[in-house]
C-alpha cells in the first residue's frame, strides 16, 4: 500500500504539468466547497450556542396563517397553560438612549421576560441575570448589559454592577453583564447590548396591558420527549381557549405556529445557501469528471504497463488499488490546497455576504468543516479514480502485450470519456441556467423603481424617550424644531420628516375602515401608516397622482386629512374616486380623516415587495415618539451625517441619534441576498463553463491523437483539411448538443426550486435557457476548434507510421 502511494507520488512529480493542473482544479473545487460549506455549517447546521438548542422552538401568533407578533397577555396565558413546553420566554427589540456617561447614545436593546436566561442556559460574567421578580409591574427597573457595552461605556468597572444608569431618562439598575459571545436576538448589524424586563421600558410596559398590542416574539423550550406535532396540537388548543376567553373583533382568525427556532431564524437564507452548496458541489463534480477523463486518457497510454503488471501477477484488486491511490494522492494534495484557499476565501466570502444572515460573523473553518473537507477530498479522489481504475483493470492483458499489436485497438474507454463530457456539459448547463436566472432576477431587481428617489439623500432616525417627551404635544414640539434645524443645515436642498422611512426595516401597520361602510370581520383592512411633514412627497420624490399633498395649514387644529397610495385607492375604491371620502384610522380613536390626494406606491420593505396599501397623514395630526428625517444635500454623505448629528445635539444634547444612513445604502441592503447568490452562483457557473470547455477540449485533443491513424487514412484517401476539420468538430458538436439537450431537461426540473429566489423572471424563462445554451455551445465550439485544427496539421505519413 505504501509503495503504491510512493509510486503514485513519483508519477505525479514526473508529470508536473499534468499534476499541477489537476491539483489546481481540485484545490479550487475543494476550496470553494469548503468555503461554502463553512457558511452552511455555521449558519444552518451548527446548533445555536445555547444549552439544548435543538429543543428550542419559536412560538408565533398567526393571523390568517401568517406568522405575526404576539401580545404579552396572550403570551402569559400560553405560558401558564402549555404542558409540552416547559419554559417560555418573550422578547422584542428596541433602541434606548443611554445618557450620563459620555455623549447620549442610542443603544440596541432587547426587552425580555426573565425566563429567557435559564431557557437559553446562559450565565452572566458579572452579577446576575434577570429574575421573575424583575418582571413584575412596579418592580425596580433593572437591566443586564453586554460585555461590549460594559467595556465601552463603563471601562469594565465591576462596581457598576448594582448601580443605576440612565436609560431613556429613567434610572435603571444594572444587575449583571453577559459575556461577549452571548447574542440574542440575533442581529448582526445592531446586536442588542442591553436586556431589560418588559416592565422596565415605558413603551412595552404600556403595551403589555393591551391584548390587542402585538409586539413580542416568543421562544419555548420543549419538555423532554415532546414531539413537534403534539406540541403544535396542544398550543393550537391553548390558543383556541385563549381566543374563546377573549371574544374580541378579529380574534377568530388568530392561531399559533410552532417551528424549530433555528429554522425560523434562517428561513430566509436556507434556500439560497442550499442552492449555493448544490452549485458548488456541481462544480466539484464537473471537475471530477474532467480529472477522470484526464486519468482515463493517460491510462490508455498506460495500458501496456498495466498489462505487464497483470502478467507479473498483480490481481485486479491490486491494479485498482494502485490506480486509486494515484487519484487519492492527487485529491489529497488538492484538498490541502483547497483548505488553504478556503482559509483565505471564507473571510472574503463573509465580507460579501448579506450582513443580515444570522451568526455569519461566527463562520470559520473549524473541525467539522475540516471533516467535511477530508470527506469531500476522499470522495473526490474516489470519483476521479474509480472510472479509470475499473476501465483500465478490465482490459485483457494478452492483447496489450502481444508485440506488434501495440496500441492497435487503443480506444479504451472512449465511450466512457464521451459520456463523462456529455454529463459535464449537461451539469454545466443546469448551473449556467440557474446562474442566468438569478442574474436576470438581480438585474430586474435593479431596474425596479423603489417609488422614491434615492440619490444624495441622508437619513437619521430618532427615538424620543418618554421621560423627557411624555406626550403628543412634546413630540410635535420636537418635530417642529427638528424640521427647522435640519432645513438650515448647509447644502440641504430639501428635507422632510416621517415616522418611518421605506427600506429602513421599520414600518407601522394600522387598521382602517371606510366611513359609512359595514365592517367585514374576516377581511383585514390595514395599511402601512406614515405621519409625514408637508414636504415629504417632494423631498422623497414620490409623485402625487391625484388631488394634493399636505400643507402647513393641515395642522393639529385643522380637520383630519389623509393621502393614500394608488394600490389602496384601487383596492378599497375600485372604479370610484376616493378623493373626498373619509377613512377612520385606528389611531387613538381619532375622528374620520378626509382623503385629499393619491400618491404613487412606494416599496416599503424591499424591492421585491408586492403592492401594498399605504396611507399618509400629517405628522402633527398623528404624532409618534419615533421619527426619521431625510435630507437632500449637496454635501458628501459623511459630512452631511456629521452635520445632522450636530443639529440634533443643538436641539437636545441629551437626545441620541439613531441610525444615520443614505437611502442608497438602505436600497442596497435590501438587495444584499439576491446580489450575494447571483454573484456566487455566477462565479460557480463561470467555473463550470471553463471546466466543461476544458473537458471537451481534453477529450477532443485526445480523440484526435487516438484517431491519428483514421485521420491519416482519410488524408491518404484524399480528404481535404475542411473534411478533417468537420469530422472532428462534428464529433464535438454532437457531444455538446447531447449535453445541452440533457442539461436543458435537467434545468427545467431543477430551476423550479429556485422559484422563490427569482424576481421578474419565471423559472422556465425561454430567453435565459436559449441564451445560456448559446453561450455554452459557443464555448464548446471554441474548445473543439483547436483540436480540429491540429487534426488537419497531422502529417498523414506520421499518422500511418504510428501504426
Amino acid at each position, binding site marked *: 500500500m505504501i509503495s503504491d502511494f510512493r509510486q503514485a507520488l513519483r508519477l505525479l512529480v514526473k508529470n508536473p504539468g499534468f499534476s499541477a493542473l489537476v491539483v489546481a482544479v481540485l484545490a479550487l473545487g475543494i476550496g470553494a466547497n469548503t468555503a461554502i460549506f463553512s457558511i452552511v455549517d455555521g449558519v444552518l447546521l451548527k446548533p445555536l450556542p445555547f444549552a439544548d438548542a435543538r429543543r428550542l422552538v419559536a412560538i408565533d401568533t398567526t393571523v390568517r396563517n401568517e406568522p405575526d407578533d404576539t401580545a404579552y397577555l396572550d403570551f402569559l396565558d400560553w405560558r401558564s397553560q402549555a404542558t409540552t413546553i416547559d419554559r417560555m420566554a418573550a422578547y422584542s427589540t428596541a433602541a434606548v438612549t443611554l445618557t450620563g456617561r459620555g455623549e447620549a447614545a442610542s443603544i440596541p436593546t432587547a426587552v425580555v421576560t426573565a425566563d429567557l436566561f435559564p431557557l437559553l442556559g446562559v450565565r452572566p460574567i458579572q452579577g446576575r441575570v434577570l429574575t421573575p421578580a424583575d418582571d413584575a409591574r412596579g418592580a425596580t427597573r433593572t437591566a443586564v448589559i453586554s460585555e461590549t457595552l460594559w467595556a465601552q461605556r463603563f471601562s469594565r468597572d465591576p462596581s457598576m454592577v448594582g448601580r443605576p444608569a440612565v436609560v431613556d431618562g429613567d434610572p435603571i439598575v444594572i444587575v449583571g453583564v453577559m459575556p461577549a459571545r452571548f447574542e440574542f436576538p440575533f442581529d448582526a448589524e445592531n446586536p442588542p447590548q442591553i436586556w431589560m424586563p418588559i416592565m422596565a421600558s415605558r413603551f412595552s410596559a404600556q403595551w403589555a396591558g393591551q391584548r390587542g398590542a402585538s409586539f413580542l416574539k416568543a421562544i419555548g423550550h420543549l419538555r423532554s420527549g415532546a414531539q413537534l406535532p403534539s406540541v403544535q396540537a396542544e398550543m393550537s388548543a391553548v390558543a383556541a381557549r385563549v381566543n374563546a376567553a377573549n371574544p374580541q373583533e378579529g380574534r377568530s382568525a388568530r392561531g399559533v405556529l410552532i417551528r424549530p427556532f433555528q429554522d425560523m431564524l434562517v428561513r430566509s437564507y436556507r434556500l439560497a445557501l442550499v442552492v449555493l452548496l448544490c452549485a458548488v458541489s456541481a462544480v466539484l463534480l464537473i471537475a471530477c469528471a474532467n480529472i477522470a477523463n484526464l486519468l482515463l486518457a493517460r491510462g490508455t497510454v498506460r495500458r501496456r504497463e498495466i498489462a505487464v503488471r497483470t502478467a507479473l501477477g498483480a490481481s485486479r484488486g491490486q491494479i485498482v488499488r494502485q490506480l486509486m491511490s494515484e487519484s487519492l494522492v492527487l485529491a489529497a494534495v488538492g484538498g490541502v490546497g483547497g483548505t488553504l484557499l478556503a482559509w483565505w476565501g471564507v473571510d472574503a466570502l463573509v465580507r460579501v455576504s448579506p450582513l443580515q444572515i444570522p451568526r455569519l460573523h461566527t463562520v470559520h473553518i473549524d473541525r467539522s468543516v475540516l471533516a467535511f473537507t477530508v470527506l469531500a477530498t476522499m470522495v473526490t479522489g474516489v470519483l476521479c479514480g474509480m472510472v479509470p481504475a475499473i476501465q483500465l483493470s478490465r482490459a485483457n492483458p494478452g492483447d496489450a502485450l502481444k508485440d506488434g499489436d501495440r496500441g492497435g485497438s487503443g480506444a479504451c474507454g472512449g465511450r466512457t470519456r464521451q459520456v463523462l463530457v456529455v454529463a459535464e456539459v449537461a451539469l454545466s448547463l443546469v448551473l449556467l441556467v440557474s446562474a442566468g436566472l438569478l442574474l436576470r432576477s438581480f438585474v430586474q431587481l435593479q431596474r425596479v423603481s423603489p417609488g422614491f428617489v434615492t440619490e444624495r439623500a441622508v437619513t437619521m432616525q430618532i427615538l424620543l424617550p418618554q421621560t423627557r417627551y411624555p406626550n403628543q404635544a412634546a413630540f410635535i414640539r420636537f418635530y417642529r424644531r427638528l424640521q427647522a434645524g435640519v432645513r438650515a443645515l448647509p447644502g440641504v436642498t430639501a428635507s422632510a420628516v416621517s415616522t418611518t422611512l421605506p427600506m429602513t426595516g421599520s414600518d407601522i401597520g394600522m387598521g382602517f375602515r371606510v366611513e359609512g361602510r359595514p365592517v367585514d370581520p374576516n377581511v383585514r383592512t390595514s395599511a402601512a401608516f406614515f405621519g409625514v411633514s408637508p414636504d415629504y412627497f417632494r423631498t422623497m420624490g414620490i409623485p402625487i397622482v391625484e388631488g394634493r399633498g399636505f400643507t402647513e395649514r393641515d395642522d393639529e387644529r385643522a380637520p383630519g386629512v389623509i393621502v393614500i397610495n394608488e394600490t389602496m385607492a384601487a383596492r378599497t375604491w375600485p372604479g370610484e374616486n376616493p378623493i373626498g371620502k373619509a377613512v377612520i384610522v385606528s389611531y387613538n380613536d381619532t375622528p374620520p380623516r378626509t382623503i385629499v390626494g393619491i400618491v404613487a406606491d412606494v416599496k416599503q420593505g424591499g424591492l421585491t415587495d408586492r403592492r401594498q396599501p399605504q396611507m399618509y397623514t400629517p405628522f402633527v395630526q398623528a404624532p409618534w415618539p419615533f421619527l426619521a428625517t431625510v435630507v437632500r444635500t449637496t454635501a458628501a454623505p459623511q459630512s452631511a451625517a456629521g452635520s445632522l448629528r450636530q443639529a440634533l445635539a443643538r436641539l437636545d444634547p441629551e437626545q441620541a441619534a439613531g441610525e444615520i444612513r443614505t437611502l442608497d445604502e438602505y436600497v442596497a441592503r435590501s438587495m444584499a441576498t439576491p446580489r450575494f447568490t447571483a454573484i456566487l452562483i455566477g462565479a460557480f457557473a463561470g467555473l463550470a463553463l471553463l471546466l466543461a470547455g476544458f473537458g471537451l477540449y481534453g477529450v477532443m485533443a485526445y480523440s484526435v491523437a487516438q484517431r491519428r*491513424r*483514421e485521420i491519416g*487514412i*482519410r*488524408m*491518404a*484517401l*484524399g*480528404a*481535404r*483539411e475542411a*473534411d478533417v476539420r468537420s469530422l472532428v468538430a462534428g464529433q464535438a458538436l454532437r457531444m455538446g448538443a447531447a449535453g445541452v439537450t440533457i442539461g436543458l431537461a435537467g434545468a427545467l426540473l431543477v430551476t423550479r426550486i429556485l422559484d422563490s429566489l427569482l424576481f421578474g423572471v419565471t423559472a422556465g424563462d425561454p430567453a435565459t435557457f436559449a441564451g445560456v445554451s448559446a453561450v455554452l455551445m459557443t464555448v464548446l465550439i471554441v474548445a473543439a476548434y483547436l483540436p480540429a485544427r491540429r487534426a488537419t496539421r497531422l502529417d*498523414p*505519413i506520421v499518422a*500511418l*507510421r504510428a*501504426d
Partner: protein
Amino acid sequence: MAENGQALIKLDGVTKVFFTDEVETHALSGIHLLINKGEYVSIAGPSGCGKSTLLSILGLLDSPTEGQYHLNNRPVAELAASERARVRNREIGFIFQSFNLIGDLTVFENVELPLTYRGMKAAERRQRVEAALERVGMAHRAKHLPSQLSGGQQQRVAVARAVAGEPLILLADEPTGNLDSRSGEAVMDLLRELHQSGATICMVTHDPRYARHADRSIHVFDGRVVEEQTEMAVTE
C-alpha cells in the same frame, strides 16, 4: 490519359533524409525509378531498407528531401497541400498491410469514402461502390463493419476501396503481411486479376513468393536500388 507503356512514375535522384536528434538518417539515397502504365512492380528488401519510405513518397504522403518526382508527366514537388490531397484522391489507390479500414464505418461507407471526398453524386457513388465490391467478391458484406470480417476479407474491402476511384496506380504496402497464407494467396490473386485487366500496381513486399507475381522486382537495400529482376522480358 497515359497509354500503355508510357511512363507513369518517374523518380530522378530521389533522396530522403530524416533528422532526429542531430543524427541524419538517409532513408533513401538517389533513387531512380521508372514505372510504366500497365506495369506490375514489386519492391523488396529487408525491413528498414527504405521501401516503405519510397512508397510514401510515391503516394504523395511524404516529400523527398532531394530529387524529382514526376507523376503522369507532372512534377509534384510544387503542389499545394490541397492539390496533393486531390492527387491522392483521384490518381492513387492505397492498399495497406494493416488494411486501415475505418472501424466505425460499414464496408460500403469505407469504399465510398474516397468518392465522397470528390464530391461525387450519391447515385454514381453507389454504382461505383457496388461495382468495386462486386469485383472483389464482397458485395454481400456491404453492410458489415470491418470488425465482423476476417483479415482476408478486410483486405479485399481495402482493395475495393483502392480501385473504386479508378486511380492511375495502386500502391500496396505488404498487402499480405497480416494475413494467413491462404488469405494472402487470395489477395495476391485479386491483385493479379486487377493487373491483367489493366491496372498499374506497385507493391512493397518482403516475401519472395509474392514478389514473383510481379512483372518486375526491385530490390532496395540501405536506401538504394541494388538489383532489378525482370520476370518477363520487359526491360528499361
